């Protein structure tokens, strides 16, 4: 395994979930679904802290080949030679339960209708809907 001081031009990528360390590999590039849109980290990137929304984390190159994970909410720290991702949920796209996601989507729409003028509830409904939509898109490979 490459250590943090490598000069190979590869990023050390870690994906941590509440249950365990899911991934500890190297990659040439990492795509991240930040709240403000997708961003891609390469070796030597400027230090960055960002919140992740729902979407796909994609790894390219490196010792384990291309990999895709669906994440729903997370936090990422990008350092020049390392990317550490905290993800509340991380799944392989094929692990996604499509029916459950569709049920979530419906639930999100219901919440949205019930939110009325409450901004907090409105935000929550939007986030539920967004996660469900992204989940469905990811499961169907539409990204």
């Amino acid at each position, binding site marked *: 395994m490459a250590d943090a001081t490598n000069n190979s031009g590869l990023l050390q990528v870690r994906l941590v979930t*509440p*249950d365990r360390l899911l991934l500890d590999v190297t990659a040439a590039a990492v795509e991240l679904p930040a709240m403000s849109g997708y961003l891609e980290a390469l070796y030597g990137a400027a230090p960055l802290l*960002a919140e992740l929304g729902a979407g796909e984390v994609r790894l390219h190159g490196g010792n384990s080949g291309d990999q895709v994970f669906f994440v729903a909410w997370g936090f990422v*720290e990008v350092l020049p030679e390392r990317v*550490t991702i*905290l993800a*509340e949920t991380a799944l392989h796209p094929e692990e996604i339960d499509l029916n459950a996601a569709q049920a979530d989507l419906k639930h999100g729409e219901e919440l949205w209708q019930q939110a*009325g003028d409450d901004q907090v509830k409105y935000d929550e409904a939007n986030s539920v809907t967004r996660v469900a939509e992204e989940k469905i898109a990811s499961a169907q490979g539409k990204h």
Partner: protein
Amino acid sequence: MANVLDLRRRIRSVKNTRQITKAMKMVSAAKLRRAQERAMQARPYAQMLTSVLESLVRRTDLINDVGDIMHPLLVEREEKNVLIIVVAGDKGFAGGFNSNITKAAQKFIDERRSLGQNLDLEPVGKKAIGAYKKRYPAATYEHKEEIYDNELSKHIEDIRHRADPIEVSFEHPTLLLRTNFDDVTAMAHSIIDRYERAEIDSVYIVYNEFKSVIQQRVVVEKLLPIRKLGSHEVTALEEMTEEQKEAAGKAALSAGVSINEPEQSEIEKEAKKFGTSEVDYIFDEAPERLFRHLMPRYVTTQIFHALLESGAAEHAARMTATDAATKNAGDLIDSLSLTMNRVRQAAITKEIIEIVSGAAAL
């Protein structure tokens, strides 16, 4: 005096019991190892979340220009309504595990009552629910729905009506079956919601802390309001006695479970550095926003962590209890065998005397 047949039956039955308790001990030991591993694997995430929050706190002001505190979970109020989460087990046969927790919780409840505070109980695990359900009434909520805008939107609100000083607000009977982060998130959100609405003014959790088989104690930890990140505000309620430690140590030894606290893994050490490098990070978002999303998660991980530790502690307690039961069964078998042999000997002696005296009478 009992006859030989009865004693033989009794011995057979105790032997069966011993076999069952021995099997239970091995099962508990295996479950304990797994629970310990799960708790270990969950640590990096919790550590990283704490580190990044600490780092954010250092870089931003918690109080903005107009004097508002940045996050509702940092707001401290006078404690009038206190919520307490009590984590016990789902099953018995675990020595004093469940009763120790309910006893400790009761101490806390009594103390708070004497200060005139109201309490909401939130029991986790069937044993805790059983202990409180009969004694205290359930909290009542008035469900209110308003429809407006030509039935296009609805406003839903649950209003709490407190009738008793001590009430059971919610029960969590299935949370321990498979301690799953999503379920804990739902529970934490409900509690945070009540805290933000000022239905409750502080939140505590009573659980069995587990460092290793011989380092356990029942503690009460303050969850809300958050005073200082990363430090657990813990008060010990019940420590292990030397005797208990010895019994637990012996049980662990015979079941092949390590009694030492597992060492910090490499990733855990690195987790402390998450988001804390001495560089100028580019922030993708305003710190207030990050804060708003990170704080509830911090609370969730703390509850998750407590549940995992309590799970490990329950298995450890069951392992120790069944080990003691196995040993007692062995002792009982020895003493019963001794009595049986004595009775048999006495019967033989009696028969010989009868034969001899019969022969002499001829």
